[in-house]
């Protein structure tokens, strides 16, 4: 019996590669890690905490930072939508804990190669890539890939290493250490947030090419298969399934527009004049050629989009809701073709469209208000496309934009910080929190900075009845997007559950679009996969543990409660028109209750009592 025969659901091995020394080590996966932190995101923060004991002294772009690729116990299995994985690091954009999560097939391939986690340490002397085939791990030169985009890099490595190879890589933006650089896997799936691509660039690691041929064993295969089938049924029977599987996240554009919160002209208004071109139906009819799924996903929400118009000609995976807003409604572009093209460029350069679009929208408003010498007009698609390119290659003003929105607002001054849509230094996502107060709280407290996916409290948006609000969260207001009452408790539940889902590495669309898959279902799936005795309470406790450890890391990086905030625009400037006219985020009413139920002190740190309860040793 080999070491790996003892593991079910996990492969039982951590791969550690030091690019400074060239040392390659394989270590057994510790049992405590599985039992306390589940996998994926949980593994990420636990290993980051252990590897960087004094995080405040770590230069995110220095060799002392680490880049952790982690999978969960459901990756590689037929559990619904289990194709995700996480990369964790200290973020150069925010200076605190940073992670990013992506779909596709790369995460599963890490498992089939025999690893749960790949830790990259140090810094290579020249551009390299990591080639992994099961036990064989090589650091190879990537000098011929320097400067190449995501599409070419992926094609070249698959050609070289064989068609079963999965590739994660950076583009020019990552090599240039742009603070919104992403890591792309399987060409069209992006670990986009927190500038994880810049960290990979700082390590001079162009790509990881991986191909696995090993068996993944389950503790209770028959029960696992049956449970997966039950979950498929719950998901397909849900009312949201048909729209999501056909239109993808584009349906959220419709929802946001209807609520009067489709962030337009850098969030100056929630009413967007070009919805006829941006509706999910128009997008699907005019540009989409087919639906695509990630590994083991029955929802298949991705769309392949083709633009024929000569000036914006491109073909590839099309934009998601976030990108329609970031590169579309925020800069107020009237047509969708240029948005799809700008998305394609961000993809090929390897950049986070949320951050890139957010920064462009901010700059447009600065120009409108005469705060900068450059002249930009709302709706100027060619200016957007030009700025995308300048950011990736750090040309002219692009070099300043590449340092992030917060840096830019500090430099421009003149009160521009009030409408710089960022939190903790990270550019905020699409959904205007003035039309979803739970989202507002979630964005303010998210452990990786301005991010909606830590909480994703869709419960308030889905027209549940007040009775259902009482049943689930003890407060009828939790179903009213404009209400702040009851939202702290609701957000907390979502955050803990999201940490579980991210750690098992399933896609949140299985549970936060439908509320069909619940903590008990997750506990069943993970128990049948691993043989570890999970139940709904224990697994939610693990989610809470993960969230609190992320908090501790951030406090050690110097984060204070003042950082749990939102831009002044969302806190004080009511939406000017439409169904949400006058709405602001009443953050001051929600935050104290949130700290109270979290068990966090006034200095932002979890109480000793809370840490003891969660079994976190400091």
């Amino acid at each position, binding site marked *: 019996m080999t070491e790996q025969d003892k593991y079910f659901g996990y492969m039982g091995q951590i791969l550690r590669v030091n690019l400074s020394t060239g040392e390659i080590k394989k270590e057994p996966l510790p049992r405590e890690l599985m039992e306390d932190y589940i996998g994926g995101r949980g593994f990420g923060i636990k290993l980051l905490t252990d590897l960087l004991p004094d995080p405040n002294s770590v230069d995110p772009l220095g060799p002392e930072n680490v880049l952790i690729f982690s999978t969960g116990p459901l990756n*590689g*299995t*037929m559990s619904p939508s289990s194709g995700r994985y996480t990369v964790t690091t200290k973020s150069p954009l925010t200076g605190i804990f940073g992670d990013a999560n992506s779909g596709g*097939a790369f995460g599963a391939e890490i498992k*089939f190669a025999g690893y749960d986690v790949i830790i990259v340490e140090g810094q290579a002397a020249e551009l390299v890539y990591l080639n992994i085939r099961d036990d064989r791990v090589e650091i190879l030169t990537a000098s011929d890939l320097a400067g190449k985009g995501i599409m070419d890099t992926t094609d070249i490595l698959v050609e070289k290493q064989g*068609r*079963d190879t999965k590739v994660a890589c950076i583009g020019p933006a990552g090599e240039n250490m742009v603070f919104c650089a992403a890591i792309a896997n*399987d060409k069209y799936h992006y670990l986009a947030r927190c500038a994880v691509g810049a960290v990979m660039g700082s390590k001079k690691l162009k790509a990881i090419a991986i191909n696995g*041929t*090993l*068996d*993944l*064993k*389950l503790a209770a*295969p028959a029960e696992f*298969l049956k449970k997966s*089938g039950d979950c*498929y049924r719950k998901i*397909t029977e849900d009312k949201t399934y048909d729209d999501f599987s056909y239109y993808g996240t584009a349906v959220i554009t419709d929802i946001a527009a209807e609520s009067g919160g489709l962030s337009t002209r850098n969030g100056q208004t929630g009413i967007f004049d070009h919805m006829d071109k941006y509706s999910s139906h128009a997008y699907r009819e005019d540009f989409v*050629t*087919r*639906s*695509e*799924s*990630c*590994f*083991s*996903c*029955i929802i*298949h929400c991705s769309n*392949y989009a083709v633009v024929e118009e000569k000036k914006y000609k491109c*073909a590839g995976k099309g934009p998601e809701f976030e990108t329609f807003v970031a590169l579309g409604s925020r800069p107020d572009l009237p047509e969708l073709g240029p948005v799809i093209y700008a998305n394609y460029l961000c993809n090929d350069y390897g950049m986070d469209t949320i951050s890139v679009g957010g920064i462009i929208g901010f700059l447009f408003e600065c120009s409108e208000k005469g705060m900068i010498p450059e002249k930009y007009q709302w709706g100027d698609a060619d200016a957007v496309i030009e700025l995308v390119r300048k950011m990736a290659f750090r040309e002219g003003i692009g070099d300043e934009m590449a340092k992030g929105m917060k840096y830019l607002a500090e430099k421009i001054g003149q009160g521009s910080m009030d409408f710089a849509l960022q939190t903790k230094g990270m550019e905020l996502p699409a959904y205007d929190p003035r039309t979803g107060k739970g989202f507002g709280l979630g964005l303010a407290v998210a452990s990786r900075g301005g991010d909606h996916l830590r909480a994703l409290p869709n419960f308030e948006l889905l027209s549940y009845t007040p009775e259902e609000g009482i049943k689930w969260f003890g407060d009828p207001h939790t179903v009213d997007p404009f209400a702040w009452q009851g939202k702290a408790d609701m957000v907390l539940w979502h955050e803990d559950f999201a940490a579980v889902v991210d750690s098992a590495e399933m896609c949140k669309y299985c549970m936060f679009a439908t509320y069909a898959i619940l903590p008990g279902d997750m506990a069943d799936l993970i128990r049948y996969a691993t043989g570890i005795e999970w139940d709904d309470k224990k697994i939610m406790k693990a989610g809470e543990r993960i969230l609190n450890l992320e908090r501790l890391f951030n406090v050690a990086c110097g984060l204070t409660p003042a950082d749990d905030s939102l831009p002044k625009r969302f806190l004080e400037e009511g939406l000017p028109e439409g169904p949400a006219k006058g709405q602001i985020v009443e953050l001051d009413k929600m935050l104290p209750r949130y700290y109270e139920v979290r068990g966090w002190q006034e200095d932002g740190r979890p109480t000793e009592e809370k840490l003891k309860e969660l079994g976190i040793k400091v």
Partner: protein
Amino acid sequence: MPSDLRKINAKECVGCRICELVCSLKHYGVINPQRSRIRVYRLEDRDKIETCRFCDNPRCVDACPTGAMHLDDGRAVHDREKCILCGACIEACPFAGSLRIFEEELLKCDLCGGDPECVKYCPTDALTLGALKEVKND
């Protein structure tokens, strides 16, 4: 000529690869796409399904020197005991990737003996029961 025993409509395939996972679990009790008798490859703007088409006049049977690949009720069936892993069937098959050798074993779809897991779990109409359904219902 491929038969319609199991209908393959590649245009409907979204590339989730659940078929690979349930196939390997059914035949080996573990999950491993490399052991699957059906594979799906994402090409730029489509997914390619590779598996036995159960041809009416299977060339793999003609090519087999040992009788391992033989006809049973007019369909190609593989007998592992007689197989010498020469690869002649793979050469002869007009559908690249349908037959593969992995770890000293020729992998060929057996339709799970009449109730194929891949069809059962396919979330779209990419894999459906064709003539097989009629046979079963009789």
